[in-house]
């Protein structure tokens, strides 16, 4: 039973435009959320995170928005660059200091020049 859902397997965006990757979760006990980026033949690398006490976190071109009432978060990339082409995983951590990351299936982003 998927507790973290990324319903779009793929997304294609033009260079310079905004990329919006979406993630939904079902467990209200999640209190920390992370986005990971994965290039082919490499392991996932941490991109940005957000605590459940916030609704927005920004780091350069990357912004994560959290809507707790809707159990929804999104990653915005502005402006998108061809080097951003990768698989993006949404992940969540349960309250209580759990070590366990619960991942979504990922969204493959392609940024076209």
């Amino acid at each position, binding site marked *: 039973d*998927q507790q*973290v859902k990324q319903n779009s*397997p793929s997304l294609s965006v033009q260079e310079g435009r905004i990329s919006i990757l979406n993630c939904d979760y079902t467990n209200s006990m999640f*209190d*920390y959320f*992370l986005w*990971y980026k994965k290039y082919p*033949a*490499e*392991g*996932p*690398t*941490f991109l940005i*995170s957000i*605590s459940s006490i916030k609704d927005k976190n920004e780091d350069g071109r990357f912004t994560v928005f959290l809507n707790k009432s809707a159990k929804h978060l999104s990653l915005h990339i502005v402006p998108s660059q061809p080097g951003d082409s990768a698989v993006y*995983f949404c992940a969540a*951590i349960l309250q209580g*200091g*759990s*070590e*366990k*990351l*619960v*991942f*979504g*299936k*990922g969204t493959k982003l392609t940024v076209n020049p």
Partner: protein
Amino acid sequence: DAMVIQNPRYQVTQFGKPVTLSCSQTLNHNVMYWYQQKSSQAPKLLFHYYDKDFNNEADTPDNFQSRRPNTSFCFLDIRSPGLGDAAMYLCATSRTSGSSEQFFGPGTRLTVL
């Protein structure tokens, strides 16, 4: 550069033949994790070590075992691989538990013939 290293990157084994995957880290992190990722699926946590304390996920098959002889190394042993165990196996580390960034290795792709 401090990093998480996985060897081998590709492993082929025969049905039922024991196989060991290895992971080492130069980050001196307390926590080491093993994830299984099947094609187009989310990475799934198998187990983790917090220092020497082993934590198994409830749904991890008994066929999967792990050893952590010291801080730097962690091994994944598959006692009798089945065709369904073919997957990418990802090792990750984190400095502490809870809301802590995890650093991933490049993964070992296991093929079972």
